[in-house]
C-alpha cells in the first residue's frame, strides 16, 4: 500500500502539514458563516419573543417536551460517537472508526425520525403555519409566528443534519477503501467539527422552543 499521506496530497500544497492546516482553517471559516446564518434567525426570534411574550409562551406550550428532550439526549450521544470515531482514527483504529461513524448515522437518523414525528403531530393539530394553521384563542397570528420560527429553524437544522449524514456516508465509503490512517484522517476531523456544530445549534433550539412553555 502506498503512503496515504502522499496519495492524498493535493497538487496546490507543498506539504501534508500545510494541507491539514488549510482544511482546518476552511472548516472553521465555514462554521463562522453558519453561526451568522443561524444568528440571523435567533435575532429575529428574540425580537418577536420580546414583542409577543404571551403568544410565544402559548406556542411553546404546544411543544412535546418529552420527545424534544429525548432528541437532545440522542443528539448528544451522536456527538459522543462522532468524537470517538475521530479519536479511534487518530490511533489508527480505522475499522472501529468506521463502525462508530455508522453508529453516528443511525443515531442521526433516529433524531430525524423523531423530529418528523413531531412535525406530523403539529401538522395534525393544525399548527403548521400557512393554510394548515388554525389556532383558536387569542394572539393567533403571533402564535403562528412562533410556529413559523419553529419550523424554519428546526427545519434548517434538519437540513444540516441531513447534509451531515451524507457527509458521514462519504467518509465511510472512503474509509472502506482505506483512505484513512493514523497519519491522515483530516476529513473525519473536519466533518466531526461540522457535526458537533450542528449539535450545539440544536441545544440552543431546544432551549428557545421547548423550555419557555414549561412553567405555563
Amino acid at each position: 500500500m502506498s503512503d496515504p499521506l502522499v496519495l492524498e496530497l493535493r497538487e496546490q500544497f507543498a506539504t501534508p502539514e500545510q494541507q491539514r492546516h488549510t482544511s482546518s482553517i476552511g472548516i472553521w471559516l465555514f462554521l463562522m458563516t453558519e453561526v451568522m446564518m443561524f444568528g440571523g434567525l435567533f435575532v429575529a426570534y428574540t425580537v418577536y419573543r420580546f414583542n409577543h411574550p404571551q403568544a410565544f409562551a402559548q406556542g411553546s406550550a404546544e411543544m412535546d417536551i418529552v420527545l424534544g428532550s429525548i432528541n437532545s439526549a440522542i443528539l448528544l450521544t451522536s456527538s459522543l460517537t462522532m468524537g470517538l470515531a475521530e479519536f479511534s482514527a487518530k490511533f489508527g483504529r480505522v475499522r472501529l472508526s468506521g463502525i462508530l461513524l455508522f453508529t453516528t448515522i443511525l443515531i442521526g437518523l433516529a433524531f430525524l425520525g423523531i423530529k418528523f414525528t413531531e412535525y406530523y403531530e403539529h401538522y395534525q393539530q393544525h399548527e403548521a403555519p400557512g393554510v394548515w394553521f388554525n389556532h383558536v384563542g387569542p394572539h393567533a397570528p403571533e402564535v403562528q409566528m412562533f410556529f413559523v420560527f419553529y419550523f424554519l429553524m428546526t427545519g434548517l437544522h434538519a437540513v444540516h443534519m441531513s447534509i451531515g449524514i451524507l457527509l458521514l456516508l462519504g467518509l465511510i465509503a472512503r474509509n472502506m477503501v482505506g483512505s484513512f490512517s493514523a497519519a491522515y484522517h483530516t476529513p473525519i476531523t473536519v466533518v466531526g467539527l461540522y457535526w458537533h456544530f450542528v449539535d450545539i445549534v440544536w441545544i440552543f433550539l431546544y432551549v428557545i422552543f421547548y423550555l419557555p412553555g414549561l412553567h405555563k
Partner: protein
Amino acid sequence: MIQAVAPKIEKNYLNEKVGLLSWLLTTDHKRIAILYTFSITVFFFIGGFFALMMRLELLSPRNWLVSAETYNKLFTMHGIIMVWFFLIPSIPGTLGNFLIPMMVGAKDVAFPKLNLLSWYIFMLGGGVTVYALFRGGVDTGWTFYTPFSTTYSTTYVVAAAVGIFIAGFSTILTALNFIATIHSMRAPGLTWFKLPIFVWSMYANSVVLILNTPVLAITLVMLAVERIFTVGIFDPALGGDPVLFQHMFWFYSHPAVYTMVLPAMAVISEIVPAFSRKPLFGYKAVAFSSIAIAVVGFLVWGHHMFVAGESVYSALAFSFLSYCVAVPSAIKVFNWTATIHGGSVSWDTPMLYAIGFIGLFTIGGMTGLFLAALGLDVHVHDTYFVIAHFHYIMVGGSVMAFLGGVHYWWPKISGKMYPEGLARLSALIVFIGFNLTFFPQFVLGYLGMPRRYAAYPEEFQMLHVLSTAGATILGVGYVLPLCYLIWAWHYGRDATPNPWRATGLEWKSSSPPPTHNFEVTPIVTAKLPYDYEAMKEELELV
C-alpha cells in the same frame, strides 16, 4: 533585460489545454478568473442597459418611454444586477482570483475545486435572476423593503430572492477560499507585513463577506417563506415588524457597500506605487485601515434608517459610528496621495484611472459625511443626493478601479499589451461622462427630487437632461475598452513578463503565466514590500 531572465515559455495557462470543456472543468484559478470576467461583463452590460433605459425615460417629466411599472422594474433589476452580479463579484472574482495566489507565491488557491464550484453557483444564481427578469421582472427596489415585497408586490420577488440567495453562496465560498489561501499558502519568507496591500484589502473584504452574506441569505429565506406561505414574519398585519427587515437587510448591506469598495482600494493600492515607482506610503496604516473598515463597517447599518422610525438614540449611535468608519477611508486617500508625491509618475492608463478613482471616491465619500449628519439626512434621504453619493463611490470609484486594474494586469492576464492611446482616451471619456451624469444628481437631490420616481415635476427636467446626456457619453466610455481589449487579446503586441517594472510576485512569472504560476516556487528574501531599492538591479532601474 528582464525578458532575458525569464524567457517567454511556450506553454502557458491559456494554451496548455484547449477546448470548451477544458475551460468549463478547469480548476486553475487563472482560468476561473477569466470565466468570471466573461460573466460579470455580460451582467454589467445588462445592468448598464437598464440604466440607459432609465436615463432615457427621465428625459421627460412624464412617462414617455416606459410605464411606471416598467420603470420600477428597471431600477430594481439595475440595482440587483449591478450590486450582486456585477460589483460584489467583480474585482474578487476576476482580479482577486487571478492575483491572490500569484501574489502570495502559491500554485493555486487553497481549494481549487471549490473555486470552480463558486463560479457555477454564481452562474446558477445569475440564471435564476435572469429567469425572474424574463418572466416579468421584479419591482421592489434592490432593498426589498417589507411589507411591499412580501405582501403587495405582484412580481417575481421569490425568484429574484432565490437567485441572490444562490449567488450568495458563491460569494461566501470565494471569500473562504481567499482567506484560507492567504493564511496558509504564502511562499516561504512572505510574512504578513510583506504582503502587497492588495492582499490585505482582499483579506478584509473576504472577512466581511463571510460574516455578512449568510445574514442576507437567511433574511431572503424569511422573506420568501413569508411570501410563499403567506405567514407573518415581517408583515405588521400578522404581528411582524417591517423595520426588523430593514435592520437585517442593512446589517448585511452596509458592510456590503464596503465589500464593493475594499477590492477597489486594493487595486488602487497596487497601481499607485507601481506607477510612481515608490513604496506605498504608510503601508501599515493602509493595511490596518482596511481591517478597521471591515470591523467598524458592521456597526453603522442604522444610518440608512434615520427617518424610518428608529429611536433618536440609536440614530445618534449610528451617526457617530458612521463618522468613525470614515476615518480609515481618509487615511487611505491621504496615503495614496502622499505616495504619488515625489515619485516617478507615469501617465499610463491604469494611473489615470487611479487618479480618477481617488478624486471621485473622495467626493463620493465626503457626500457620505453629509448623509451621516442626522439633521441633514432627514432632508436628503431617499433623494437623488443618495443616488449621486453611491454612484460616485461605486461607479466613479469601484468601476474605475476595476477598469484600471484590468488595464494594469491585462498584459499578465492575456500576454498582450492594449493600445495605450485609445485606452487613455476612453479613460478621459469615462471621467467626463461620469461627472456629467452624476454631478447634476447632487443638485437634484438637494432640491428634493425623490429617488425611484418614474415621473417628476417639471422644474427638475433640466438637470435630468444633463444627467442623461452624461450617461450616453459614459456608455461610449464603457463600450470602447470592451472593444479594444477584445481586439488586443488577438492582435495586441506581446507583453514582457514585467512591462511596468513593478515589484509584486505576479510579475516574476511569465506573461501569461504557466499553469502552476511559477517555474520554481518563489522564495521571498526582500525585507520590505514594494522594495524598489532592493530590486533596482533586477528591474533595471538604474
